[in-house]
């Protein structure tokens, strides 16, 4: 553990990876704090997986440095690997072995004592709801179950940092939900989670902070709300639906309201952006003006929107 920054578990400075003439990862800086869920987002080929591999010491860096829990993955790979759990994209297990045997094998690689390993395996499988298939062959497992088995491996390892590469890709909504729930469980156990994905809305619900990758660089980094403020402009958007009055004229007078725009194709639906939560004032104004308020909703900024808007902007700039 780094003594200077006890709450930073992964720190990358000027991290670069060059394949031939192509800069897959171009001098990125990022820091991940203990106990947070950090999302690496971006289109395929933006450098997410390469960044992860460099953090694990599975590929050499071309420049810059990574520090994982105070260790250098290139020079001290064992120290890093002992403390970090990794779930690769489309994880593979030995199909002809049972789930228990697969975990036992990992336990032996970790040189856990036998009895300790057995209890940890049982606990880990319990925590990912796979206890009843512990002695089934992995070849009978669905994709979702394999991913959960991968999480179980990380739980068994008692990793301080979990790195998940595209954990939800190829999963049905229910499995995705379950998996994200388990990721939250990891966080509750005090594990820092780094996950990469291109599925934005799913990731938005679990991530504390995200970094948006674009062509090997980090385009944006911060909480989802911060990103939204940067890309979509500051403000607190709400959705108002009302009948019987001129909404635009009525609402513009409220203190703090910055804009009132028609939303979508529906009649009478308006998007109101203010610098604070103005829902109470809006409701009051509409009712006192004699209008019929039919809907009033808080619009969370969606990462999807941030993402689309950002890349539109980037393309226009190019």
């Amino acid at each position, binding site marked *: 553990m780094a003594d200077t920054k006890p709450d930073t578990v992964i720190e990358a400075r000027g991290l670069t990876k060059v394949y031939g003439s192509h800069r897959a990862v171009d001098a990125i800086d990022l820091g991940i704090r203990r106990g947070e869920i950090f999302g690496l987002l971006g289109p395929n080929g933006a450098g997410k997986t390469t960044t992860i591999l460099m953090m694990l010491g*599975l590929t050499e860096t071309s420049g810059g440095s990574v520090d994982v829990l105070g260790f250098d993955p290139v020079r001290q790979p064992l120290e890093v*690997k002992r403390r970090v759990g*990794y779930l*690769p994209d489309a*994880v593979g*297990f030995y199909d002809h072995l049972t789930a228990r045997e697969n975990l036992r094998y990992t336990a032996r690689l970790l040189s856990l004592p036998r009895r300790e390993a057995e209890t940890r395996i049982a606990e880990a499988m319990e925590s990912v709801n796979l206890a009843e298939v512990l002695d089934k062959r992995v070849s009978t497992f669905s994709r979702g179950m394999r991913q959960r088995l991968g999480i179980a491996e990380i739980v068994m*390892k008692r990793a301080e940092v979990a790195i998940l590469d595209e954990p939800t890709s190829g999963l049905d909504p229910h499995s995705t939900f379950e998996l994200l729930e388990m990721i939250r469980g990891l966080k509750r156990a005090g594990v820092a989670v780094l996950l990469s994905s291109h599925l934005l809305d799913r990731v938005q619900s679990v991530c504390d902070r995200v970094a948006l990758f674009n062509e090997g660089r980090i385009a944006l980094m911060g909480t989802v709300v911060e990103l939204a403020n940067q890309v979509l402009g500051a403000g607190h958007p709400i959705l108002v639906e009302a009948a019987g009055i001129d909404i635009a004229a009525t609402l513009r007078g409220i203190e703090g309201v910055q804009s009132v725009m028609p939303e979508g194709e529906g009649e009478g639906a308006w998007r109101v952006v203010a610098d604070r939560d103005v829902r109470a004032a809006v409701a009051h104004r509409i009712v006192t003006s004699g209008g019929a308020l039919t809907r009033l909703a808080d619009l969370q900024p969606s990462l999807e929107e941030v993402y689309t808007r950002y890349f539109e902007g980037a393309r226009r700039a190019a």
Partner: protein
Amino acid sequence: MKELADHLSSVRMLILTLFVIAFGAFPVASSLQTLRTVVDPNSFLFLRIFTLEPEQVGISFVAALNFIIPLMAIGLGFDSVNSEFNRRTLSRVLSQPIYRDALLMGKFLAGLATFAVVLVALWLIVLGAGLLLLGVPPRGVEVARGVGFLVVAIAYGGVWLAISMLFSVLFRSTATSALCALGLWLFFFLLWPQLASAIVSAVAPGEIRSVEDYAALQDLAMGLMRLSPGTLFSEAVLGLLSPETRTLGPMLPAQMRGAILGAPLPFDQSLLLIWPQITGLIAGMIVVFAAAYVVFQREEVRA
């Protein structure tokens, strides 16, 4: 350990074993037939089981092994690393706290152990059959030479195992790696002897004026041939199993002085004779393994 269990329980292993037994049984059975008719208490009867070329089969047990050992080693090694990659287990395994060389070493040792088990079993079967059918117990020196033969055979297998593992590290596709390993094997077996003699005749001066010229040419030919692990193996085995072998190269008159033709050398002298071959095999194994190791260390494990 898991690797060893994998090998021993796999279907491939069963097929390979059957293959080896079928291949080895014929020469042994017919050489035993022949040997029963010979009564010569002084000759190394048991060793003759291995080396006799029975007329019906036309290939001795040793020659059959020379042919079959590489095949078996390739069979054990050609997909050792890239199958892990294709099953996508490699990155998971490598993210555990073990060094990469531990993985490679484990695979190599497991393959070698599996291979040794089969070979020892085969060796014991042959010895047992000889004991039963000939009714003469082997002498101590024969057993010693037999064990020496076993060691050489395992080293020879190790070379090919290392070669096939090198290919499995180099190529992502198991089929490519199998083909390359088999191609190399065929090359050494079929093409290399002809290529070597072609090179020698290309290098040879127009006329051979002296014994030295001739000896140098012979040396070159032998040197080229010995690049093939198969040659090293058969020479080493020749020295071990045919005690009357005095030299592996051309015999000079000087070497004949005072020698009783056809008299066997003592075991330690035979061992001395083939020592370069044995070290050559082991060194080859280590060099190829080291190459595989270097390639594997630097490889990016992207799943």
